[in-house]
């Protein structure tokens, strides 16, 4: 009978607390979104499943010597996983559209207004006593506006690991929701006439330009914002492997098996931060609110910058592509393309939106470097 008692005491039935049950429901909801609605499933599915595991009472999975805890210590506490993912993203990124039209980088800069506006928003909420975010935490939350998963995870792992779970959920959920979040903002700030602006074809870009660009970007980063060099360095490394054309087997691995392996392990490690005692805190609500604001603000800033550029330049650009400056590659560019087609069925904005889209990746990595430098 003793065993029955010991096992009964060991069951989840006895040990479950309501917070864990709530977290299980939340994680099942995230799985529903990932599987049925295809919300960024590559990350959200592993994260949500990790969250399920992290909330099973009576066994060490996300704590002690449990596997999720070990994966967290190996890859997230060290920042290795986000940086390797960023290398893979670099190997998958084509800077061609950006090189064909460099001035669209300004849109990628403007959209980062969302980051810094959110920083102020978080600090304001703290000042109002609604939440209690430190400067480090506010910076880690603000980067959600960068709409770039690995950058968000990297910054959170450096500045505010205690918020990593909520920040990851917010970042990937809102990236998946870009087709819902961006249209109202972009439509409110543009006229139908502006949305019908057509953009001409892009010039072809030379191979040598594509090879030199990641080196140029790295050198400029080293000179001006070295704190962004780990992130942009790995990104540029992946991109140089890709564009050099001489290490195809490494590029293929960086784009496929390496990034996939790290994605699986990273997702589980992030999921370990969804344990009820860390996630079911008031801060999570604030993070979700601020994250939504960050996406909307970044979108608005990108669109407004595009309109400003049209005032100053003779060669007009469709202001919708400013919305792609938030990153969320390639979702934001696709959303822009769809809005453009709604205004004019023969308007093809996809390629033009890819420029600000990848510029947004650069912009938010730079912003992350600045935040590390000044808030870290």
């Amino acid at each position, binding site marked *: 009978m003793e065993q029955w008692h010991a096992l009964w005491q060991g069951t989840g039935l006895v040990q479950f607390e309501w917070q864990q049950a709530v977290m299980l429901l939340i994680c099942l909801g995230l799985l529903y979104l990932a599987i049925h609605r295809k919300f960024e499933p590559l990350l959200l599915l592993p994260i949500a499943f990790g969250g399920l595991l992290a909330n099973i009472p009576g066994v060490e999975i996300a704590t002690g010597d449990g596997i999720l805890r070990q994966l967290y210590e190996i890859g997230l506490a060290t920042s290795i996983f986000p940086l390797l993912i960023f290398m893979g993203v670099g190997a998958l990124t084509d800077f061609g559209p950006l090189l064909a039209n460099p001035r669209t980088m300004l849109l990628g800069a403007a959209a980062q207004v969302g980051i*810094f506006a959110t*920083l102020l928003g978080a600090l304001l909420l703290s000042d109002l006593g609604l939440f209690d975010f430190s400067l480090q935490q506010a910076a880690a939350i603000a980067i959600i506006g960068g709409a770039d998963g690995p950058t968000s995870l990297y910054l959170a792992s450096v500045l505010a690991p205690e918020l990593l779970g909520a920040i990851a959920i917010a970042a990937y959920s809102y990236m998946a929701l870009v087709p819902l979040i961006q249209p109202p903002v972009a439509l409110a700030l543009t006229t139908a006439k502006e949305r019908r602006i057509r953009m001409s074809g892009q010039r072809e870009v030379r191979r040598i330009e594509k090879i030199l660009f990641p080196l140029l970007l790295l050198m400029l980063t080293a000179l001006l914002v070295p704190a962004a060099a780990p992130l942009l360095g790995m990104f540029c490394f992946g991109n140089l492997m890709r*564009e050099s054309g001489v290490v195809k087997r490494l590029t293929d691995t960086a784009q496929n098996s390496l990034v996939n392996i790290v994605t699986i392990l990273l997702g589980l490690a992030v999921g370990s931060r969804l344990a009820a005692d860390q996630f079911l805190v008031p801060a999570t609500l604030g993070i979700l609110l601020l994250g939504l604001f960050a996406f909307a603000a970044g979108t608005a800033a990108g669109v407004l910058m595009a309109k400003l550029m049209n005032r100053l330049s003779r060669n007009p650009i469709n202001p919708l592509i400013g919305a792609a400056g938030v990153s969320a590659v390639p979702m934001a560019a696709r959303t822009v393309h769809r809005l453009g087609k709604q205004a004019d069925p023969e308007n093809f904005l996809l390629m033009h939106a890819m420029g600000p889209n990848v510029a947004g990746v650069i*912009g938010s990595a730079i912003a992350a470097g600045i935040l590390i430098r000044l*808030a870290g």
Partner: protein
Amino acid sequence: MENLFSQGLPLALFGIGVVFIFLCLLILATRAMSALAARFAPAAGTAPAETSPSHLPPAQMAAIIAAITLHRARRGAAA
């Protein structure tokens, strides 16, 4: 206490300023690089789409198919 916001305001302005400065410099540097590339590597042509993420690039695919076809043809001839 309201000093978090007032502490953050210059930080935010400064931050977005640096982002703009960085990307403006990057625009200039990129344009200069492209101009140099056009001058010194005129015959280099455009970047081939050679880094496709597919496991089997079409060329290799075609080669394999050709090899199989040949192999079958030989087998057929032998049969």
